[in-house]
């Protein structure tokens, strides 16, 4: 019955959503039995979780654009860090535009390397990541640069409007932009076409090089936005601030049903994937699970979920 009701594209989203409810219920049962309260179900707590999850959510949104092409962007950690560090170093009104410019530049470089030089994205973005790290170490290592977040960065990451954290509004704006691009524009359709079969897309007259560059720019831009906000949230930029976002972002995209080889996936799935990972982390920290257990559960959940709905076709010819 489930099979017929849900298309292959929606099944992962439905299952992941069910799992989110299961996580919330399990966490609530735990807190009720130990402390007699149910903080997980309070709107305030959930909003707070979504606020901290928005950084991952924005990274994952950009990552999805690249994964839909069958590529991957391993330069997210240091793009994020570089954007945050240049933003705080520049300061003032130009802080955020500079950070976005950093993101766009990195995206263009990545896109050129992957689409024109035809170097596998896996290794090219890894190289770009290393170069960015080198640049940041060279720039900030010798002296203490200005690393304080500007007021507007603090506002974006920490303040609340109408009781809802501003960070969630930013995340929502990014999400709407991505959904519109993917479903309502030619560029979005080109991404799906190029991801399915690049040669066919090329022969149909799609300028696949521009599409690839565009997707990497989107990823760099998203990483830069996340960097600006994370710097605002922690009130400063620091080295290695982006390291914790790469693998969860990939995991969120894949858990949401986007195919890692490209061509298939819906943005709502990525959104569900991010929420799943954020809530899983928060429930595990409420349970005071040691790091070892967290990592094991985290890995097992990804494998388990994919075993349910992420299986490939068997090769038979």
């Amino acid at each position, binding site marked *: 019955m489930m099979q017929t009701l849900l298309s292959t594209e929606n099944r992962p989203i439905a299952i992941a959503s069910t799992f989110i409810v299961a996580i919330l219920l399990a966490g609530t049962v735990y807190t009720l039995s130990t402390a007699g309260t149910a903080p997980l179900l309070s709107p305030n707590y959930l909003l707070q979780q979504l606020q901290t999850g928005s950084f991952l959510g924005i990274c994952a949104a950009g990552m999805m654009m690249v994964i839909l092409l069958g590529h991957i962007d391993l330069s997210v950690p240091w793009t994020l860090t570089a954007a945050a560090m240049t933003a705080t170093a520049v300061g003032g009104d130009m802080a955020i535009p500079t950070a976005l410019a950093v993101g766009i530049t990195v995206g263009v470089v990545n896109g050129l390397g992957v689409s024109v*030089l035809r170097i596998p994205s896996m290794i090219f973005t890894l190289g770009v990541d290393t170069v960015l790290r080198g640049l940041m170490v060279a720039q900030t290592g010798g002296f203490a640069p200005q690393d304080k977040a500007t007021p507007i960065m603090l506002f974006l990451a920490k303040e609340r409007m109408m009781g809802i954290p501003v960070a969630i509004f930013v995340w929502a704006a990014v999400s709407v932009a991505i959904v519109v691009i993917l479903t309502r524009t030619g560029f979005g359709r080109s991404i799906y076409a190029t991801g399915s079969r690049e040669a066919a897309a090329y022969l149909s007259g799609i300028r696949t090089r521009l599409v690839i560059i565009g997707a990497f720019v989107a990823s760099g831009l998203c990483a830069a936005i996340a960097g600006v906000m994370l710097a605002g949230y922690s009130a400063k930029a620091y080295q290695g601030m982006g390291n914790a976002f790469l693998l969860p972002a990939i995991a969120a995209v*894949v858990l949401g049903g986007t195919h890692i080889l490209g061509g298939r996936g819906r943005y709502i799935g990525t959104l569900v994937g991010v929420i799943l990972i954020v809530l899983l982390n928060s429930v595990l920290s409420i349970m005071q699970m040691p790091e*070892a257990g967290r990592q094991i559960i985290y890995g097992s959940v990804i494998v388990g979920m994919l*075993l349910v709905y992420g299986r490939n076709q068997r090769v038979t010819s």
Partner: protein
Amino acid sequence: MRVFRLKRWVMQNVGFATALLLLFVLLITYNMMHPRGFSSAVAIQNSNEAVAIIFVAMAQTLPVLLGGLDLSVGAIMTLTNCIASEVVNGSPAQMLFGAVLTLLSGSAFGLLNGCIVVYGRIQPIIATLATGAVAIGLALAVRPKPGGNVDDDLSWALTNSVYDLADTYGFADGGDAWWIRPFADIPVPILIVAIVALVVWLPFKRSVTGRTVYAIGSAEGAAYMSGLPINRAKITAFTLGGFLAACGGLYLAIQTSSGNADIQQAGAYTLNSIAAVVLGGTSLLGGSGGAIGSLVGAMILRVISFFFRILDIDPLLQPLIEGFVLLTAVSVGAFRTLRVKNKLDLFR
């Protein structure tokens, strides 16, 4: 005739031949610039620092040959490093048991990866992303804090020259016997890597299973239709990858006398292993290359970092230079795209 054969070999292994040439040039230049170059002491120090990344790069090669990627090799190395730091001490028999246990646990983890990829039909890159987290979790459970205890004699004997090995365990007249003299100055770590490469990798590459791994990387459908043992080859490749990563973890434990469940370190090893595999001439699309190339690629990565010590480069610039070297090295392979006549050949 022989020249012709050499030429053909070079044409068939351009990536590997270039890497080998680059390594020789780098090594010779390094030793000429080093005040104590071409000595056993320098070779011992350098080879010690290279062993772990060499093994991890060799481990990464197998999934890459299949056309996949293993994001858990660094984590498996970390896990086995932590296990080894617990079990490799005591009597010789206990140490041997501990070493075997370490290698077995790494292989078992690789087997798990292989089963998930084959029977679970999940893409290797994403399956190993998840199992890598599990491996790190297990490593943290085995060793929550860095530390450990590995037999000092073993640590000394395996990280120095053959003479010291013989001296420590008192065979071959403590290293003075006539037949061991020609080998006395060779660093033991080089021997270990060479033995694993010759005894494990080469026979595997020539077996039906090994050839199947290459065939799957070239065209899985064709390999299937030819009746090759696809599932067996994939599972063996991942298991062997786990074994090689465990070799790296075991050696790191012996070398440092400790284990450290460091997530950052595991990630760095995984990413460097991909770089080493590409530098060594293995195609990320699968089907061509080999673990010996990755061995060379890993050594190139290490030698580049050795140069920083003698060239007196500002330490703050080192990561930047490392990054540029890596980016340039992988971009050199891109020049084939300029020679492609039919644009459709680009989209493979």
